[in-house]
């Protein structure tokens, strides 16, 4: 049960890199603060003195939202665009951080404790960025393929050509699990490729990608089970968040803060799961190599 050992080891890796975990969280918070600061200022200056903002606490207030969009649509779209730019920058930054994370995790298992996080970030940034673009294209291609399939199976997108709207639903029900599975496999391959980029340390990405496909497809069930375990961990974190966030009526300061805190815990947990995911891939490869050294039997 190599995937279980890898998963167990990933938890140890996560625990051993608490500072890194915290660093990721701090980066996330800082970026989000920059994104949301214009909104806070806008609310303060334009709506701060209106009772409407206080009266709209609690449930979703459609009238309040529509009046804000009607009156301040321009400002709101500017704020949103800024926020999207920051989300984009964060994405680049997280690709940058990934190099350091992987360098640290791989080094940790090799017993190299002097590995520099930041030099790893710089060293692998462009390679991991290229890798992300390649896998992005693959994901886009998959989505496009599924879209074409959806159209041809369901009888097209024009409602006037369709016999029944059930055709859309049925096609969706068939294709969605297939798409979900394939997209998940691509995500999984991407994770393994990231580790190979760092482990093999090649400027060109052909070899890491080749190794990824070779390794993952060679032990597909084991890799998949490990990935599913990670997905399950995420679902547990998300489930907990959903449970605590449900029914939180944000009409008092205490509840507003509590909702925010629960949100932060979720983001922190989400980042932990991300580290756990990468850690488990690193650990799985480590396990595989160790097994190969001592025993050539294939195990899952």
């Amino acid at each position: 049960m190599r995937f279980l050992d890898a998963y167990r080891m990933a938890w140890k890796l996560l625990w051993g890199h608490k500072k890194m975990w915290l660093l990721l969280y701090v980066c996330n918070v800082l970026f989000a603060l920059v994104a949301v600061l214009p909104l806070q200022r806008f609310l303060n200056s334009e709506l701060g003195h209106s009772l409407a903002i206080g009266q709209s606490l609690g449930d979703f207030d459609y009238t309040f939202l529509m009046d804000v969009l009607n009156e301040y649509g321009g400002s709101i779209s500017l704020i949103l665009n800024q926020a999207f730019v920051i989300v984009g920058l964060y994405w680049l930054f997280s690709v940058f951080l990934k190099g350091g994370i992987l360098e640290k995790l791989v080094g940790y298992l090799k017993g190299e404790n002097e590995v520099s996080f930041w030099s790893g970030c710089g060293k692998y940034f462009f390679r991991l960025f290229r890798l992300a673009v390649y896998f992005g294209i693959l994901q886009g291609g998959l989505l496009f393929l599924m879209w074409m399939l959806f159209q041809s199976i369901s009888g097209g997108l024009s409602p006037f050509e369709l016999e029944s709207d059930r055709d859309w639903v049925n096609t969706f029900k068939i294709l969605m699990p297939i798409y979900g599975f394939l997209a998940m496999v691509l995500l999984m391959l991407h994770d393994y490729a990231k580790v190979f980029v760092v482990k093999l340390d090649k400027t060109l990405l052909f070899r890491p990608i080749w190794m990824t496909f070779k390794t993952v497809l060679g032990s597909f069930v084991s890799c998949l089970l490990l990935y599913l375990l990670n997905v399950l961990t995420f679902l547990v974190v998300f489930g907990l968040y959903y449970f605590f966030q449900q029914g939180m009526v944000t009409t008092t300061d205490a509840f507003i803060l509590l909702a925010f805190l629960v949100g932060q815990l979720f983001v922190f947990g989400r980042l932990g799961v991300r580290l756990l995911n990468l850690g488990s891939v690193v650990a799985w490869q480590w396990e595989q190599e160790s097994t190969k050294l001592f025993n050539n039997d294939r195990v899952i």
Partner: protein
Amino acid sequence: MKEEPFAPKKEKSQKERQVCIFVHQIMRYFILLWLMILCIKGMAQNAPLSPRIANYEMDVFLDVENKQVQGETLLDWKNTSTDTITSLQFHLYYNAFKNNESTFLKDGTDFPDFLESQESACERWAWMEVQKIMDEQGNDLVVNMRYIHPDDDNDKDETVLEVPLTTPVLPNQSIRLQMDWLSKIPNIAARTGYNKDYYFMAQWFPKVGVYESAGMRYAEKGQWNCHQYHSSGEYYADFGVYEVAINVPGNFVVGSSGTLINQQEEGDRKIHTYRVEDVIDFTWTASPHYVVQETTWKHVSIRLLTYPEHRHFASRYFKTIKNAMEYLEKYVGEYPYETLTIVDPPIHGLFTGGMEYPTLVSSLSFCFLPVGIKTPETLTTHEFVHQYFMQMLATNEQEEPWMDEGFTTYFEGRILDHYEGEKTSTIDTWGIKAGNVEFNRAEFLAMDNPKIADANRWSWEYVHGGYGEIAYNKTALWLRTLEGIVGIETMNEIIKTYFDRWKFKHPCGQDFFDIVNEIVPKNHGDEFGENMDWFFEQVFYGSDICDYSVASIENREVNAKEGFMGDLEDCVWVEADGDDNGVGESLFKSEVVLYRLGEVKLPLEVQINFEDGQSVLEKWDGKARSTDFKYVGKNKIVSVEIDPERKIYIDKNFLNNSRSVEVQQMGIRKYWMQVMVWVQRLMEVFV
């Protein structure tokens, strides 16, 4: 007591005989009275609800191969005017799709371009051809008939047919015409037509226009009101009785206006005969795939026609329609018809959904529609309200679209908000919520230019847009505002009076205004002036916007004993207003300034809240560009709210309707913190 069967009969005493005669007489009176009651009741039942001017007996044959309807009409038309009628005018609505130069297609900006498609042109174009018109004397009227264009000079438009009569119709006389006609059915356009084997037959037969005699609505002299078919706007017709025999393939299920009175098989076809009285139109639908589900509400048989994949919507439809019936019966009047048919079109008949016809409405659903998206509820309610505001109150939908759509939208909001919740009656899913009334308000205010037009115009006169937003949403908004100003009780009385006085007639806008101007002063004296014309001038005849705001709040601390020079000669100190006990205690001179930012002037309430929790409700006539309220007291003003009960629902911006001295930190925190968590989550999605 039981009588002995064979006991000898005793002679009755005189007293007994007198009693007997008395009892007999009483019984005779009772029987007479009972018969009279029955008679009156029967007469009342048979008494026509409407003037029954245009009465149709039709035999129609649906040719599914050629997508045509062959019809034979026996039209009984009654001249209720004092004029002698020398010609009749007919709507031939399907001719709107006869050529691309028709007025409908020329002024339709967002109309589907299917008519440009060459390969399927024959299937998609439509027309209506009157082949024979014969009067009782056997005169063939076809020879002199001609297309006319009362709205424009478009001689390519063939949607209005004038038929000169050989024998004029004298006042209070009727004419009976035998008409043969053939309609090519359009591939669904303007909520009528076919697609695949689904047929929705609306505006499908030659329909006589309305003759308005002098004094009726806005007519200065007797005239036909029979407009061409325009892409924007609906219909106008007289009341009558319809008896229609619909001949369709045997496997087709038929839904129709009225009650099924006969069904007869004829080879592989079936004839369904429907009859309905006192309505202004007749619509039917047919498809081999319909599933029929039925229920009843009081005297009404409700029939739902859906495709199999939508059958599970029955509970939503039935609940909604019963709610609407209950509400309208209570606040408007009785629904007098025996039937109501709800049609839920299939996906390929999408464009026939959401339309109203006498005793038949079409709604819309998708099999993947979640419970929280209340499209079926909204459409069913809306279209059913039209049974009142369009069908029984048969306004001219082309000339005064606000009178059917605006009132309907107003009642749609009242009904849905009442039964489905003010904040959840339109959307209530995934944490997103919207009420119907607020949704309609937002639709109007989200326009690029809410001042684009007034509501006093014909439906095709919204040349640069605004038909939907002004005729539907803005009208509903100002009706709601009127309700806020005069109170719900008065509003209900206005609506009931309007319905009782004008049902089965053709009211115009002024008729409604007159009723408002009658009821409001009766209930409120001169509180709102002599009449409410000032209101209609602004919200109906005008296109301006209503927007009030709280400009500022100022609290200035003053000393209670601070005096002023009261008498220049003796130079004495005069004590300031205030509490005598509060020697040396601080007082606050507080001032609130309000602005009128919009052009519309409406009376308002203003709530001023003080720091000790007390509030004052002030009134402002809302006329000046700005006003202020000043107070001196121990407590500072903490906040001010214009129209706290949102009676002036037409106000464009509720955000500036209030102001607090302190910044609403809690609200600000809630929003930015919530958005921050969303951003943080979003950031982690693509990593």
